[in-house]
């Protein structure tokens, strides 16, 4: 009996994931309503649940895919993978207002470059503070503070060692997890309540997954604006970090 059930769940992995996430979201919204009277967004609780479960999944299975490393929940990996994520993000654009996008166009674009440089500089300074002295390692860790894709791309281009690349990925992961959790907490203090600031937010943060989850937990209406700028960030980071920014770091040292 149980074995048959497990087989059914594993064979229909994506469908199992839909059911599982549905229950998770339902539970989160129930808690939001009963325990916090709606003060904490249901989606924020659901995302926090997701992260906790991902931690548990990683701890138990030793894998790198969080909950999706459990055979029965492999579908969560598909559902939460880049393909469906990007598809859903594009779909949110359907409700976006063109005028709002135009209004923040130039500032939004500028915020992408500022965001990449800012995160790189901060990451590089932390690397220096921890005793790193060679330009390649400092640049790779700085790039990782931009996103966990910019880090390894930069590290590979510059020929960094694999442990430094691993550190840069970890810095990027920390950033994206923190953006997911932190955004709804600081949203009102940093004025993140309109399309204009959402575009700046997306450009500064840059982590697509962090921005996607952070805005979902804050105000889903802002998602298309933040996602629009965030999606250019990794490309700009991969362009600037191994070239201009690395050369500047090397010149300073």
């Amino acid at each position, binding site marked *: 009996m149980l074995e048959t059930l497990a087989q059914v769940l594993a064979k229909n992995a994506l469908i199992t994931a839909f059911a599982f*996430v*549905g229950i998770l*979201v339902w539970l989160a919204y129930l808690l939001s309503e009963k325990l916090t009277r709606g003060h904490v967004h249901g*989606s924020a609780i659901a995302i*926090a*649940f*997701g*992260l906790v*479960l*991902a*931690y548990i999944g*990683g701890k138990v299975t030793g894998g790198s*895919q969080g909950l*999706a490393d459990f055979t029965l929940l492999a579908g*969560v990996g598909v*559902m*939460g993978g880049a393909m*469906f*994520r*990007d598809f*859903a993000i*594009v*779909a*949110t*654009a*359907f409700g976006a207002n063109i005028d709002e996008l135009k209004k923040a166009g130039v*500032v939004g674009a500028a915020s992408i470059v*500022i*965001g990449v440089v800012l*995160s790189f500089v*901060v*990451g590089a300074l*932390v690397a220096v503070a*921890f005793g790193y002295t060679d330009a390649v390692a400092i640049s790779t*860790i700085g790039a990782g*503070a931009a996103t966990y*894709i910019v880090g390894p*791309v930069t590290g590979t281009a510059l020929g960094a060692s694999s442990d430094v690349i691993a*550190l*840069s*990925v*970890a810095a990027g*992961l*920390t950033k994206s997890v*923190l*953006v997911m959790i*932190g955004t709804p907490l600081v949203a009102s203090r*940093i*004025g*993140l309540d309109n399309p*204009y*600031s959402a575009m700046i937010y997306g450009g*500064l943060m840059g982590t697509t997954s962090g921005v996607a989850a952070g805005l979902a937990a804050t105000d*889903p209406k802002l998602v*298309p604006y933040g*996602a629009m700028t965030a*999606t250019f960030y990794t*490309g700009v980071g*991969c*362009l600037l970090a191994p070239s201009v920014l690395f050369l500047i770091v090397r010149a300073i040292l």
Partner: protein
Amino acid sequence: MVIYGVALLSFCMLVGMFVGDVLGDLIGVKANVGGVGIAMLLLIFLANLSAHRFRLGPITESGIGFWSAMYIPIVVAMAAKQNVIAAVSSGWMAIIAGVAAVAASFVMIPVIARFGQEGRRDA
């Protein structure tokens, strides 16, 4: 038909991803440059264009609306497959670098927002 909406959405995403990859190749980076953003712009453009020429029927629209509504559950699944262990167990330097980058970026949001607003008023 619902599939028209889903197909339109798919078309936009594929075009965006393609353009993003080509852009990445052109500027010589190993990443997709703005694929999702380009797809979003294309969808907005087509949806508004069709308002004049051929209207998207409400059922066609629901093919896009469904995926838009699936956004939050998909993001929850995405959170559940993150490598949280790697983020928290790799030592202080990576964590501090990530935290400091986020804190600095958060602080800059109101600064840039205000700067941009003033620039617009002057112009």
